[in-house]
């Protein structure tokens, strides 16, 4: 009888404790796998490459107006970090640790640190509400997580304005990001669904992968703002509508119809190939031809 009571007690603890405790442990040092979208994530995307983005008219025009000189001339952009939704795509060496409530031993949050811009982020698991609408937005945003079986679903709001890709494709501060975190042995996968009512007409979905690397030592990123270009105060480099000379480069280099490179939901799905017109890849690849990882991507081959 006594043993039965103890078993019931232990079972009770297990059942009542489970919902608030992490069911999968994500802690550790994680190294990014660049097998997806390596050119974009390493050396940087081509100007005018909007492939795969369900851009709204507003998103496309802001991207078209982008002048890469802005990240140098506008000094406040020099140390502007990746927001958490883009951060996992960038130089994404990642450390995850648990925050444990000493009184209950519950895991109340995951804390992450990433190499790029020394990004710190908290994902709260304790059921706290998101801040009010007029509260401060941040680059990590405000993230809460709930368990769906062994998958952690993370909802992030209160993001500062940032970018979906580093060629000027914007992401607004009205976006909500839903991430699904799963771990399979030594592999971590995060599938992010970005809803941006301003710059996207439908959610953008992308996945990113890491492998466990216990010996990894993340360095200090560091950043200081400097005057880099002697231009008048308040100069904002941009192209007037219709005057950006760089937008066709990508299409011409890879033999794609210009329309296909403009993004938009209508170009997003496989059916588009039926009406895209002929694809005429260049006979000799001259750019980003042998991307097998991060650092060989910038090599040009003939």
């Amino acid at each position, binding site marked *: 009888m006594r043993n039965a009571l103890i078993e019931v007690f232990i079972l009770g603890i297990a059942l009542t404790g489970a919902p608030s405790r992490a069911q999968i442990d994500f802690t550790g040092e994680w190294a990014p796998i660049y097998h997806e979208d390596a050119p974009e994530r390493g050396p940087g995307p081509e100007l005018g490459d909007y492939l795969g983005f369900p851009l*709204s008219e507003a998103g496309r025009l802001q991207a078209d107006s982008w002048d890469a000189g*802005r990240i140098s001339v*506008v000094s*406040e952009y020099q140390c502007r970090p990746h927001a958490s939704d883009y951060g996992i795509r960038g130089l994404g060496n990642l450390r995850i640790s648990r925050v444990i409530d000493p009184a209950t031993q519950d895991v109340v949050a995951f804390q992450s640190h990433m190499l790029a811009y020394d990004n710190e982020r908290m994902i709260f698991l304790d059921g706290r509400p998101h801040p009010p609408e*007029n509260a*401060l937005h941040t680059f990590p945003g405000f993230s809460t997580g709930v368990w769906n079986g062994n998958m952690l679903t993370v909802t992030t709001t209160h993001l500062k*304005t940032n970018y979906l890709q580093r060629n000027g494709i914007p992401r607004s501060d009205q976006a909500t990001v839903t991430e699904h975190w799963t771990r399979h042995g030594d592999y971590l996968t995060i599938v992010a669904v970005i809803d941006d009512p301003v710059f996207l007409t439908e959610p953008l979905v992308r996945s990113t992968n890491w492998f466990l690397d216990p010996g990894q030592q993340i360095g200090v990123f560091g950043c200081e703002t400097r005057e880099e270009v002697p231009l008048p105060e308040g100069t904002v480099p941009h192209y007037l509508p219709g005057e950006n000379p760089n937008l066709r480069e990508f299409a011409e280099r890879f033999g794609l119809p210009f329309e296909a490179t403009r993004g938009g939901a209508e170009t997003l799905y496989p059916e588009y190939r039926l009406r895209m017109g002929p694809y005429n890849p260049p006979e000799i690849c001259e750019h980003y031809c042998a991307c097998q990882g991060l650092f060989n991507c910038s090599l040009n081959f003939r």
Partner: protein
Amino acid sequence: MRRMLTAAMAGSLLAAGVVGAQEPSDAIQILPVQGNVYMLIGDGGNTLVQIGDDGFVAVDPQFEYNAPALIGAIRTLTDRPVRNVVVTHLHPDHLLGSAALIESGSGRVPAIPSIMAHENVLLRLAAMDSPPPVEVWPENTYFGRQRDFYMNGEAVILYHVPAAHTDGDSIVFFRKSDVIGTGDVFTPDRFPMIDIENGGSVEGYIDALNFILRLTVPARMQEGGTRVVPGHGRLSEEIEVVEYRNMLTIVRDRVQALIDDGLSLGEVVAARPARDYHAEYHGDREDWTTDMFVEAVYRSLSGE
């Protein structure tokens, strides 16, 4: 088109009379900002309140009708008396609650509390055909580049930014708390409201935003550090002001290019030069649409 913009401005200025008949709202939300400063959000926008042993300073006390709720909210923060009420410009959503706040004063203070503003606010109010009650007129004005005073252990500096939202705009800097109240020179929930009838201009507006950026210092990786409380919209930092300045500069350049090409006001509006910012800055607001904003930029640049 010009008539539409003027009507919108008049609507804004007369709004107090219209909404004054409504039931007072008790929906004042309090957000701690930093140091001694709080942001109180209500129907009239954002009020800054700095508290301490000396008393409290309030910036932009919203409408008259929600003053009781505003005072009630302040009393949850401090029981000290009012010392100064700063009004960043003459629009009623920033001005009309000031008299009620002054009258709410209690306790002995070394100086009679006063309503502070740039002199152009007073001059504009005095020139109105139907001005608001004199009790809300600022009697403690300045006409130079700046005015400062010391309260609750920190310097409070009012900077005049000429010909921006109006010609009487003040930026309020709480130096130790490292908080800036911008009034309507920065309103991230809407396009810049360039009140040309009251001396505003697009160039002055951009200059004012650049001036704010000279004051702000982020703590680390473009976050933290100086906090910026807009006249309307959410609590911000330097980078939000950068984005806003960038947008206004880009739209200014686009409209100027269209003017240089010889387009008329109607043609410029039809070209939709701010269409990529329409959703971001809620250009479907009834009181300040994207087209009204573009028209104001056009008129400011063309002088028409």
